[in-house]
């Protein structure tokens, strides 16, 4: 184990030194990690060849599964690491060349081994829901987390970065290797599929159908999710179906004590001409008379039992970069601003606002976020408040000035300010 750990640590260092990291992919391939398809393989290989950098050669080797000369790979990854990869059956050597038998994805500063994305009939392990979950789940520090997705353990390893103990649902050789590769083997625990994982959790990650409404965990959520903890669930939902937040409320038996938030990040029509991997889903949906499918992330936060519940929903573009901190701030803000904020002591200032534009003729505002969420259109009173939220004035002063300027009651102006808080434009 020590040798394995040492050689995988060496591999990680070599990959990092070669610049094989998630942000390097798009400039080289001219497309995102989810858009690698077998049809485009010759073009992608050519792009890597032309780029010629160590990162490009590693992309060709690990993601496009191109064979590479032994000496080149030894140079990039080290002979000890390669020997280990061959021993583990992840790389095959044949007459002086190496060929990967698994894909190795760079993601969020780590590396994840998975079944090859380009195998005939295979589904990329990093499907859009899984990828979205990796980029958005609010990973704040806690004691224990559990990931209910079977697979190569990517969420388990990511959760382990913020929790003392991180449970995964299925032991596979790749999930164990991924924990080792990312130096998380001490905090990762993998259970068998049918095994009941004990304890309470600060974070639960899952995607449907691996967590469904008849899962024991859902009925026990009040006992299994800590106060302040979050269930992050990637959902692909048929439309029209029961609205997701209504469905979640039904699971939980009501809204009290729960904060519910939905981020919808893509919507598409169901089609007969859909990628093979989705065919079953589409056919079932079509036969049942549904018109489309939406990809969402559902966040269920357990509140103090005395707190009133809240629910909120936003539409965003599919995330390309990590926005876990923004999602966490958004969930926090729903709680903090679910009631009138303390006006006297609070000095509002911009939070995730990058720019505010004011309509020179109508006073409407247009707030750009630093990243992640789409721009928000603001009524003149809200634009007025945001424009003056520079951390120097108290909320009380802002509310008073806004009420006078726009002939509002104090409570109306205070609510506008709270809404800016809930939209994470001010903090």
């Amino acid at each position, binding site marked *: 184990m020590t040798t394995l750990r040492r050689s995988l640590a060496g591999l990680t260092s070599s990959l990092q030194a070669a610049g094989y990291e998630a942000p390097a992919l798009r400039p080289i391939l001219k497309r995102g990690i989810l858009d690698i398809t077998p049809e485009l393989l010759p*073009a992608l290989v*050519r792009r890597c060849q032309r780029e010629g950098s160590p990162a490009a050669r590693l992309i060709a080797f690990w993601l496009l599964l191109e064979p590479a000369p032994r000496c080149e790979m030894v140079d990039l990854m080290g002979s000890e690491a390669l020997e280990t990869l061959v021993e583990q059956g992840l790389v095959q050597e044949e007459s002086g060349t190496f060929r990967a038998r698994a894909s190795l994805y760079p993601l969020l500063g780590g590396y994840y081994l998975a079944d090859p994305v380009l195998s005939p009939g295979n589904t990329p392990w990093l499907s859009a829901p899984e990828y979205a979950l990796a980029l958005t789940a609010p990973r704040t520090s806690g004691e224990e987390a559990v990931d209910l997705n079977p697979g190569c353990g990517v969420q388990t390893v990511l959760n382990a970065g913020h929790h003392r103990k991180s449970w995964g649902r299925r032991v596979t050789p790749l999930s164990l290797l991924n924990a080792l590769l990312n130096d998380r083997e001490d905090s990762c625990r993998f259970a068998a599929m049918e095994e009941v994982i004990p304890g309470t959790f600060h974070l639960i990650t899952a995607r449907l159908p691996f967590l469904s409404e008849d899962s024991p965990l859902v009925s026990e959520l009040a006992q299994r999710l800590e106060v302040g903890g979050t269930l992050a669930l990637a959902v692909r939902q048929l439309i029209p179906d029961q609205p997701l937040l209504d469905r979640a409320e039904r699971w939980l038996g009501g809204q009290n004590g729960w904060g519910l938030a939905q981020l919808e990040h893509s919507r598409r029509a169901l089609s007969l*001409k859909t990628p093979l991997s989705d065919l079953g889903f589409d056919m079932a949906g079509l036969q049942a008379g549904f018109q489309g499918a939406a990809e969402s992330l559902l966040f269920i936060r357990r509140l103090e039992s005395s707190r009133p519940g809240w629910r909120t929903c936003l539409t965003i573009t599919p995330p390309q970069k990590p926005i876990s901190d923004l999602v966490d701030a958004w969930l926090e803000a729903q709680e903090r601003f679910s009631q009138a904020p303390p006006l006297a002591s609070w000095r509002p200032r911009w939070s995730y606002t990058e720019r505010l534009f004011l309509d*020179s003729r109508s006073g409407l505002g247009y707030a750009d976020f630093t990243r992640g969420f789409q721009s928000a259109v603001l009524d003149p009173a809200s634009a007025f408040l945001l424009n003056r939220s520079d951390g120097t004035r108290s909320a009380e002063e802002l509310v008073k000035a806004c009420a006078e300027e726009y002939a509002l009651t104090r409570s109306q102006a205070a609510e506008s300010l709270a809404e800016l808080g809930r939209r994470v434009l001010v903090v």
Partner: protein
Amino acid sequence: MKLSQRQQAHLRSLPARLSAAGYHERELADLFELCDLYVLRDGIGARTLARCQQDTPLAHLGSFWFLGQTRPRALLEDLLGAQALAVLERLDLVQDSPEGVKARALLFPCLGRYLFTDLFAPVGDPQYQVYWLGSDSLGLARCAPRKPVGRSLDLCTGSGVHAVLAASHASEAWGVDINPRALHISRINALMNGQGAVCNFVQGSLYDPLPEGRFGLITANPPFVPTPRGDLAFFRPGGETGEAITEAIVRGLPERLEVGGTLALVSQHPVIRGSHLLDRVESWLGGADGWGLAYLMMAPLDRDEMIAGHIDTPGQFATQLGVEEGAAAYRREFETWLDSYEANGIEGVELGLFYVRRLEPGLPGWRTECQLNLPSGSLSSWVEDWLDAQERFSRPPDPGWRPSWTPGCQRLMLDARNGEGFVFRDPACRLGDFYLSPENAFLLNRADGRQSARQLAQSFALRFERKAGEGLTRLADLGRQLLLS
């Protein structure tokens, strides 16, 4: 194929019947739940297919002409007229079968006209396939100038769509194509739309078969696919750079375009390393003087996906050659295309239109470009205003001019912290919103029709400590962007 006077009359009766059935672009797109009709080629969902089984005239006609579904003869006779249906059968545009009648052509509505084209999958020799109305065809149809002209010319006319549309504002509309089947379809389309007397279709290469003389409007949607292969259907290959035919069209303009006249050419233009499209157009014209050049960029296209779209899929190769050999053959074919693109410096492809306007002798040339999403309806008057504005504001504006916002400038937002501007365009004009420098935002914000250009330029000079002349230049710049008039 010759039609009798009576048969021609039956063919001319079709547009009114189609229109009465609601067979229009928007209604069909709604029926198919698509943003536009050109997307149809990518297929529709099964739910949409189910919608098309409704018992409405539009659903019957939509599924008949676009989805390859048979319909009972009696129903089609009721919708299209029995005699008109017989004429279509004689023209081989529909075919009787034991299950009912089936379409052998697509029938597109376009800006109040109707156009037959070949099916997406050709029924005859693929070499002679007549192109359907793709995003390029619709882009040109919707963005061609529509001022009255004496003679118009449509090169590489295909279905004749642009000649038929030009016939409504030209006293003579010519169409040229090298493909004899295209001319057959074009003539049917002209007849059906009542433009048989105005339209003249001739076979040959570009300007070769035309009589002497110049044209007030020249439109072209030439074959543009950059390809090392010469065996694609007529409407596809544009030589290795994709511009062989485009170049020949532009080189003919000094002889064929009248003063004040405009060429509107749509293409998937190659993005060539170190060379701008309008630079190439200028060199084909022999210089900038006497020519106004404008480029409307509609969409950047993915080079790799474009190549994949023009060669057989890995599955098709595998069917022919087996899995391993098929995969290798697919890769070799793809690499042949890549080699050709690299040799020609082609890094990408853009869907767009360029315009060449012939100016009065002695006038300085101008050039401009902007981005546009494919409009859903006619944008012709905007295009004319845009081209006219380039001409008007190619010189410093009159200091007495009182600038005001055009209808295309809907809203100006000012950055609360640094004074930069953000302009929302009228959504109908489909131009993208964009940022303005603090200087231009300052001028635009004050241009309310009350102050003269001189006064605005002076305010600008005071505010930014610059010369007033720069203010006038900036106002002209906003005029060319169609923000001020």
